[in-house]
């Protein structure tokens, strides 16, 4: 009797399994046909590293403060700098990132106070030649041209902080640290889609912008650390 019960039980469960698979036969596929269809990367996506340049002047934002190089856990960033005799400020003369060792952790982006380096949503960076994975300054600047970003503002930090604190009381704090709101989209199509969305949540963006700055002052330790390092 036990055997019969077991057999019936077994057959029932076998049929149950068949039911599950046949149910899925008629469901919509969840996969993406990659080169034809593409995902829209989230704005925080950490892909290819770029150097950002000023939109008006076209010059790099980088001030060669070496913070990113110091923050990098794998020593992928190598910067050489020179003092500009006119402005008495440092300028990078070479900025090399060895993407073969880069672990895309984003610590360089967090360390940077001048919105100069950024990990973007680009993800297609396979090349046939290993040497081409050594990104130099010109290349980094070139691929960073179309990257949209919000410049971190260091001015009036305290006022912003106060305002943000007030805001925090009545609204959920959506602080984001060292994140630009408008990230690159992998394709022009996605870009257009993002453009469409923009008006809808522009209001939210305004808010989050101010809150971004609260995120910025989280970077304060880093900047203080920068001054520390200068002392050293």
């Amino acid at each position, binding site marked *: 009797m036990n055997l019969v019960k077991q057999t019936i039980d077994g057959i029932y469960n076998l049929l149950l399994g068949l039911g599950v*698979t046949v149910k899925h036969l008629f469901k919509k596929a969840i996969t993406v046909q990659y080169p034809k269809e593409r995902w829209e990367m989230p704005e925080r996506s950490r892909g290819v590293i770029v150097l950002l340049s000023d939109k008006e002047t076209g010059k790099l934002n980088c001030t060669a403060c070496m913070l990113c190089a110091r923050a990098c856990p794998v020593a992928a960033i190598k910067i050489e700098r020179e003092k500009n005799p006119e402005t008495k400020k440092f300028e990078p003369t070479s900025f090399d990132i060895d993407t073969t060792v880069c672990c895309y952790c984003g610590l360089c982006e967090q360390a940077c106070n001048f919105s100069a380096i950024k990990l973007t949503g680009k993800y297609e960076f396979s090349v046939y030649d290993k040497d081409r994975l050594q990104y130099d300054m010109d290349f980094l600047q070139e691929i960073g041209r179309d990257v949209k970003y919000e410049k971190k503002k260091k001015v009036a930090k305290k006022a912003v902080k106060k305002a943000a604190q007030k805001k925090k009381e009545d609204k959920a704090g959506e602080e984001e640290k060292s994140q630009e709101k408008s990230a690159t989209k992998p394709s022009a199509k996605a870009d257009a889609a993002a453009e469409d969305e923009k008006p809808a949540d522009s209001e939210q963006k305004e808010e989050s912008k101010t809150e971004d700055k609260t995120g910025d002052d989280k970077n304060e330790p880093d900047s203080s650390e920068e001054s520390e390092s200068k002392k050293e």
Partner: protein
Amino acid sequence: MLELDPIFDAISEWLASFLPPVVVTIVKGFGTAGVVLGVLSLFVLFFIWMERKVSAHMQQRLGPMRTGWHGALQTVADAVKLIQKEDLVPSDADRAVYFWAPVVCFAAALMAYLVIPFGEGLIVQDLNIGILYVIAITTFTVVSLLMAGWGSNNKWALLGGMRSAAQIVSYEVPLSMSLIGTIMIAESLSMITIVESQSGPFWNWFVFRQPIGFIVYFIAATAEANRTPFDIPEAEQELVAGFNVEYSGMKFAMFFLAEFINMFTISALAVTLFFGGWMAPFPFLDFIPSWIWFLAKAFTSVFVLMWFRWTYPRIRVDQLMGFAWKFLLPLAFLNIILTGIGIYIF
């Protein structure tokens, strides 16, 4: 109705006008074999594509999409790739055995089609020992798998070959026994006679008179064809790929094709013996050509096999043997006894 025999007869008559009869027989044999091979190759191409699509959709994927309409030409592309591939032979392999194993496997798989009726009159040769012939010839697979396992000189391959020997020899017994009930009712070993004795509406099919026989047959046949859940000779996760671990290129393709041909063989056999062969479910549907009925049934059966494969885990090797000897064989004997009683009563 599609009739091949007159065409062949006409051709052989024409050939006989200027060739000696021995040559005519040989040419006729090769011609028939060529036709069967061509048709089967088409089927197999379709099955491979179908397997991919069925598995993909069961897993909420799309499967091949690039080559041809919904990847229909993917198999062709794969075949071209496999033909181009370098044919590697392990340095310590037993070369002759290694070479002949896929050939034997492929030939054994093909030869079963000699007696399978694809439709009314669409049969290569109606042997009066049809079933016996099919069972005998499909067993040759085990020889080829053992050859492959031994010839590769690889421990995994050898384990795979040994497993397949144990498995196929075990399942051969319940498989043969399960068919005896059918033969008793049809009172013939000939495929044509068996199909004809199922004529009439669909409840005349043997599956309704031989349910136990059918279940035993279907399980045992799945095991014979090395399909999941009984694919232990290959058992990717245990034996890497079992007997064909060292094979590449066209030799691998032959094993692969043979597997799909075997799958169609057991489906075709199931249709012939239990689902009325080329018969329509109702006599008034006879206007549809018989070979369409046959193929529709066979393809459904192939789909069920695929459905099993993409649903169930693999059974363990000793449990597999136990299942054959302790469960299927008694069941098959029970079926024979019940059939005997039934025949005596009615």
